[in-house]
């Protein structure tokens, strides 16, 4: 049996490693390794070594990933995992070879903090220096949560402010340019939904007001409207079908203005998890559903049946413990395990009833076939980096799941569906993602055949770098 991360941590704690310097901490604990500062200059492009298998012949392109990569100045650290500076990694696959490179998004926050070599700005869970100069959310924009391609640019996304535009070839930062001048510094979440024809939908929340963005495939703004959703829930992700926008309103509510932001949220476990469904063509035409209280970060995707039933998958937890506790303490020591979320399917019936279908498998970072965004599909893949180091694939139509378990000490991160050229079946795809191998102190990229996940990766490359844990990524075909 492979030792779980909990067991590894217990061993590390017994050895006193957790009380030692961060570097020693990292040797024993992959999560510790995953929240070390990356090199300020990033990673120069370097070939990755094949550990296993061979690259599929037709797989050519780049996996871009974003996540917090800088947390500490001296002995001071950010107050929360979510507040590290955006570190954008590129894993380029060409002619069967893979290369790994990375750069920090050159944000105002990062420029000033690097210049002063101290944490200056407040964040989601960071107090910052008293009186820190903040005139706009984009002054504290960490550009650290996801990436998307738009109009030939790579956009580094954060949920509280504007996209940060980057060059996808060099990873140089172009900067922030508003989607429209009068909408400067409006929130744009890290979970845009890109329809099969390329149209981009996104939202951004401020209190109980939410902006709904609609962009053309080239990234130009088509429409933006602000609606009132009735409660200031934490809104990290959402879902879109062919006809509807789905805004989940969980009972973790921002009801106090205080610093840091995370402390202003309250968990109301006695209140329902509401789901607002809006007509894409008329936002005033809306319905509200209620599900039992639960916390979520991420949805998979949504679709609707001919009878109007809407389904969307999400990774659900019993409460907000991870975001309020563990995502803070993990920067110092991993002081407690939060069970991973369970993959569930929310079913919203046309008659107003709502129910949850459970999968029995646990993890985070759900991903689906983006060729089917908003459309009926069977599969969703999730990564489990807690109880076991597993990549799981759920089939909602059959109710069956399959998985692959990585070796000891592997921190499994998001894996994306990458379509195989010339074929359209949902399983005609590769699953491409990374792990942080704590034992080897190296980031690894894996490619699975979605038709045979449990066979294991068809190829695994190992980087010379141990990159910080990331959040989300996107694939750009060559």
């Amino acid at each position: 049996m492979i030792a779980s991360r909990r067991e590894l941590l217990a061993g590390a704690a017994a050895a006193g490693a957790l009380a030692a310097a961060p570097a020693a901490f990292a040797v024993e604990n992959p999560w510790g390794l995953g929240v070390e500062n990356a090199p300020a200059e990033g990673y120069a492009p370097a070939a990755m070594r094949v550990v296993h298998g061979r690259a599929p012949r037709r797989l050519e392109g780049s996996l871009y990933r974003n996540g917090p990569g800088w947390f500490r100045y001296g002995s001071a650290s950010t107050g929360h995992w979510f507040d590290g500076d955006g570190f954008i990694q590129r894993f380029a696959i060409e002619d069967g070879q893979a290369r790994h490179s990375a750069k920090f998004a050159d944000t105002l926050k990062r420029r000033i903090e690097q210049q002063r070599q101290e944490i200056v700005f407040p964040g989601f869970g960071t107090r910052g220096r008293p009186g820190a100069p903040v005139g706009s959310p984009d002054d504290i924009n960490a550009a650290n949560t996801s990436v998307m391609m738009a109009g030939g640019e790579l956009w580094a996304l954060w949920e509280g402010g504007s996209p940060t535009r980057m060059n996808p070839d060099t990873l140089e930062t172009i900067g922030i340019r508003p989607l429209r001048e009068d909408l400067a510094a409006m929130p744009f979440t890290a979970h845009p939904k890109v329809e099969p024809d390329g149209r981009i939908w996104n939202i951004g929340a401020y209190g109980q007001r939410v902006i709904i963005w609609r962009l053309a495939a080239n990234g130009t703004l088509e429409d933006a409207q602000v609606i009132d959703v009735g409660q200031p829930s934490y809104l990290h992700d959402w879902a879109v079908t062919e006809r509807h926008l789905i805004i989940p309103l969980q009972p973790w509510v921002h009801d106090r203005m205080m610093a840091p932001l995370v402390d202003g949220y309250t968990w109301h476990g006695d209140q329902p998890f509401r789901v607002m469904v809006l007509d894409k063509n008329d936002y005033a035409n809306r319905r509200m559903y209620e599900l039992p209280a639960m916390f979520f970060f991420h949805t998979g995707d949504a679709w609707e049946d001919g009878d109007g039933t809407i389904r969307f998958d999400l990774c659900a937890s019993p409460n907000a413990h991870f975001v309020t506790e563990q995502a803070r303490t993990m920067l110092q020591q991993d002081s407690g395990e939060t069970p991973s979320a369970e993959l569930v399917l929310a079913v919203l019936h046309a008659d107003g009833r709502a129910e949850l279908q459970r999968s029995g498998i646990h993890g985070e970072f759900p991903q689906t076939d983006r060729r089917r965004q908003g459309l009926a599909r069977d599969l969703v893949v999730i990564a489990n980096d807690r109880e076991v180091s597993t990549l799981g694939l759920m089939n909602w139509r059959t109710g069956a799941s399959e998985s692959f378990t990585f070796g000891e000490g592997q921190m499994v991160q998001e894996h994306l569906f990458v379509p195989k050229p010339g074929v359209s079946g949902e399983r005609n795809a590769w699953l491409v993602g990374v792990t942080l191998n704590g034992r080897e102190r190296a980031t690894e990229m894996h490619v699975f055949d979605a038709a045979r996940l449990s066979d294991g990766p068809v190829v695994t490359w190992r980087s010379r770098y141990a990159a910080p844990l990331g959040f989300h990524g996107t694939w750009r075909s060559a």
Partner: protein
Amino acid sequence: MLLRTALLALAVLGSAAIPTQASADTANVTIELTGLQPQGQVMMQVFSSEESYRAGRGLAARRIPITATTATVEFENVPTGQYAVRLFHDLNGNGELDTNPFGIPTEPYAFSNNARGSFGPATWQQAVFTLTAGENVHQISLGGAQ
């Protein structure tokens, strides 16, 4: 938003002048503005006490047409002492500090000492500067956060 309210107050003011009293105890001050986009107008307000600053009751206000990336504003024969300046660059000339739908200013603004507030306007303590007898020069940049 507090910042918006404070700066909007500028828009309704005319070009009131600081009371002057030429003597050995008076000062001349040149305020040099840099980092401007050559369009629109700058709306500037001058304060001589914390109380008036907090209340938004300026001692004087100026409307300065902007045609270059720099501009200067001069006040002559003003009493020596402590002052603070706040301004915004009305890029589209509509006389208001424009904001996004969530109340965040979308036009540049600044305070004396290049002070920056924290989720609001700079405080009097951050923005206050002293005019001494004779010639004074004070520089304010609108080139973004420093």
